[in-house]
């Protein structure tokens, strides 16, 4: 992910006034978005699609409900359907970063 794109995402995030307030309280920061994008690109994109495009048959993360972070964390750490559990590999901070990226990133 380029710096320009992160900036654009952060801007879009900041622009979404009320929502941004909520997301900030969930810990969605520019740095976390950047880290989350890297984790996503390496581990998640093979099934959920590059930059969350072309999710194929996996869950389209662009549609993940912003008010269900705990569901997101549970799915990532414990697995769901054919998705294996990632809890032993991704630390809580990594999952937070992924959440930040999924909430802020690639909504176009």
């Amino acid at each position, binding site marked *: 992910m380029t710096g320009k794109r992160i900036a654009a995402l952060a801007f879009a995030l900041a622009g979404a006034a009320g929502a941004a307030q909520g997301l900030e309280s969930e810990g969605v920061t520019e740095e976390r978005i950047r880290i989350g994008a890297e984790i996503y690109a390496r581990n998640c994109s093979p099934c959920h699609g*590059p930059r969350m*495009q*072309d999710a194929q*048959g996996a869950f389209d993360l662009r549609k993940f409900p912003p008010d269900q972070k705990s569901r997101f964390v549970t799915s990532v750490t414990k697995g769901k359907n*054919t998705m294996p*559990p*990632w809890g*032993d*590999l991704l630390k809580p901070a990594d999952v937070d970063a992924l959440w930040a990226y999924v909430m802020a990133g690639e909504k176009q």
Partner: protein
Amino acid sequence: MRRSAFAAAVFLFIATAASSQTLDDLKSDGKNTDNILTYGMGYQQHRYSSANQINKTTIKRLVPVWNLSLDNNWGEQAQPLVYNGAMVVTNAKATVAIDVATGKQIWKHNLDWPPETPRVVCCGVSNKGAAILNGKVYRTTLDAHVLALDMKTGKELWKSKAAEWKDGYSMTVAPLIANGVLITGISGAEFGIRGFIDGWDPDTGKQLWRRYTIPARGEKGNETWPQNNNAWEVGGGSSWITGSYDPELDLTYWGIGNPAPWASQSRPGDNLYTSSVLALRPKTGEIVWHYQFTPGDAYDYDSNWELILSDIDVAGQRRKVLMQLNRNGFLYVIDRTNGQLTSAKAYEKMNWASHVDMATGRPVETEVAKKLRASEQVELWPSTTGGKNWPHAAYNPNTGLLYANTIHQARMFRHLETKPHVPGQRYMFVENLPIAKKPGEPHGHIDAIDPLTAEKKWRVPLTDFQIWSAMLATGGGLLFTGKTTGEFIALDADNGKQLWQFQTGSGINAMPVTFTHNGRQYVTVLSGLGGLYWNQQRERLKDIVPQGGSVWTFALLPE
């Protein structure tokens, strides 16, 4: 079937299994149509049977005679084996022995691997099949073990660990038994493994040898990797499709997978022996010769697909060759005594190379390839899925033609910046996006192909989905294969015309076989949607094709 009759059948199976098959039986597999003892229905991997009771005239009477649930939603890809009236079937979860006449389950051996294991399986939680010798069944497990079962009871006899799944290693390959050695490959190039092929003692599970597919520092071939970094140690080179074997030459041929990461900028050089074929001595694993199809592979054009052995006329001379419809779009014919390239012709649309230079044996890359290597996004033909993926071709030695399910697909592909390797995590660094099909453009074809010219005797366009089932050719002039939408179909091998179909309970992405039992010819295929194509097409398939594995067996309805 009454209980007493079933008990009698089980007894018969146990009694006959006692007269176990030998290495000589393996060598002559394909000659006795009662048994299927090897992957590919013979060491030459022709996937051809001379059985002709089911033929163009009688096919209208072909009906299902039994179906057995495999209680598995991960997908069925395996080739069944048959010995003395018992069938052995595998998937990622279990091994099952079945009475071929009745469809009754004789035993089932369940596997248990950590739920995290699918994380290191790039392309489908599956298993391609078993090997059998002297009353033992051999198979690999998703979490990278090799095990032996008693063929009579399914009891586990030994289990050996090949590698650590947490480091990205997994196994779906069917083993090969060649010259008394049990040989297995490995998966994991998408996770930066260093690939290998192993030789095991079939009696004890003791490892006899390991041949890394990437030579170590100081070994011949390592000079094709950067000397200033450790790219060779994490360079991929899987071996996830069973090799073929020539007992006279005592050489086993294994296709080797792509280098890691897919983005090639961190590993300048040819990267031996990735995207190559290796000819090995089965007793020692010694490399006798190699040929590299795609040097410095930047496209995931791994070269694992079936290596079909035959003796054919080339420019008036009888030659011992191996043939491969390589993922990179070229059909190769190679002298299997010495690795000399005989022919390399494009069988599918390609834009990464213009041709193969017959003097050097190397592909001549195009401007598209140069742009890709310069990190530009390109429309790549064939896509990383290849002009053909693993679903194996059949070869009829009487017609001299290859019959294959090929893929017609491009993708928008580019390399991303590479990052350091982390064990057990993806090591690819590419962006690979689909391209909308032009109206009327097929997804792939069923092709009858001349090995030396790559010309199609006929081709059937596929307008709904690609076919991800292997092909079976028979002495009845038929081809059998299965569709993603579940139809098991028979074609006229002369012209590709569909003669028969049966709708199975799920999609088919497996390997049909045919055999005879008490004078009756049977055809068997596993149904159960799974694997890479299912993963890519789930959105289109989820409402029209259910999951769920089962074994379907067919025979002629008596007149």
